[in-house]
């Protein structure tokens, strides 16, 4: 059975990049345009990993990660942040909110595949 990855990013091109990089490796991708959509999509099926941006409308990445971590069912769900925010404070804030990994945009698709495989294989 295919592992399911949820990607939350307000940029359609980034959603497409991640889909292209991961679907070729056999992962199923659910793409959401913001944190709100991601929160609604989470309970609808079994999600194995979440990739999220930080700057998003409605519900941002920090809020999404925090709400995931507050839920007992998703406490162990791997979360990878994919953001263009590259200063120490943002990175620490992202990690402290509960993310497992943090990747800077522009990202190397190989690195995304590596990070995902680290948690799912």
């Amino acid at each position: 059975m295919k592992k399911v990855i949820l990607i939350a990013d307000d940029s359609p091109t980034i959603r497409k990049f991640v889909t292209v990089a991961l679907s070729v490796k056999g992962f199923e991708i659910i793409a959401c345009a913001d944190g709100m959509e991601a929160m609604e999509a989470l309970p609808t099926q079994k999600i194995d990993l979440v990739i999220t941006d930080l700057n998003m409308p409605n519900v941002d990445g920090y809020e999404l990660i925090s709400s995931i971590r507050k839920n007992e069912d998703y406490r162990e769900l791997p979360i990878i942040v994919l953001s263009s925010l590259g200063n120490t404070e943002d990175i620490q804030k992202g990690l402290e909110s509960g993310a497992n990994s943090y990747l800077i945009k522009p990202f190397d698709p190989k690195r995304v595949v590596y990070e995902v495989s680290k948690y799912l294989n």
Partner: protein
Amino acid sequence: MMEQKTNMENIFDKLGDLKSFFIYGQKLIPILQKIIDFMQSTVPLLENVNREIQDSTSKIPKAALQINRVTNATEVATTEILDVVDGVSMDIHSMKDKLQSIKSRMGEDDDLVTLLGMIEKIETRMMNITISLQVQDITSQQLSSVNHLIQSIQEKLSSLVKDLTNKENKEIPSIDLYPRDGTFNADARYDKNSKSQELVDSLVTKRNNSKTSQEEIDKLFANQ
């Protein structure tokens, strides 16, 4: 008699004051005339400035719309290129699988090894295309930041026009900040240099190490 004299002196004093006031007034009239002339020549200038501000303010949403159009066009083009990259990547992936199965059936073959090596090179190049295409996301964030700046200038100019004309300018449409309404990173940079990622990795490692140390300490105390 003495009292009458004092009153007359007072009247003359007052008349003297009045005289000096008129003399001063005579000196002041040309200055006042100059001020009036200056004001008269300034009013059309101010009206012109006001008209220019109103004109510029009404042009601002058009500039913002053009920026949005650029973002949308690059977004569509990037998605189209990515669709092609996706299709080619899938083809390469199945080609690689087939060559691997031929290799396992036929054993080591120089041509097969060469072909697999070439396919890997193509895969790497396709990956590099996707990295380069991420410039669209970065530029769209920068353009959104420019639009945001334009919006604040429009707000300032609109309030200036309102103050000058004493009425709200209803003709100026608002700026649509699509696609990134306040969710952009103005400092986003297209930087393929791995230094930023190295900083992140060092922070993650540091955090994980301190986490491990804490786990070890807890374990140590639990054993005692």
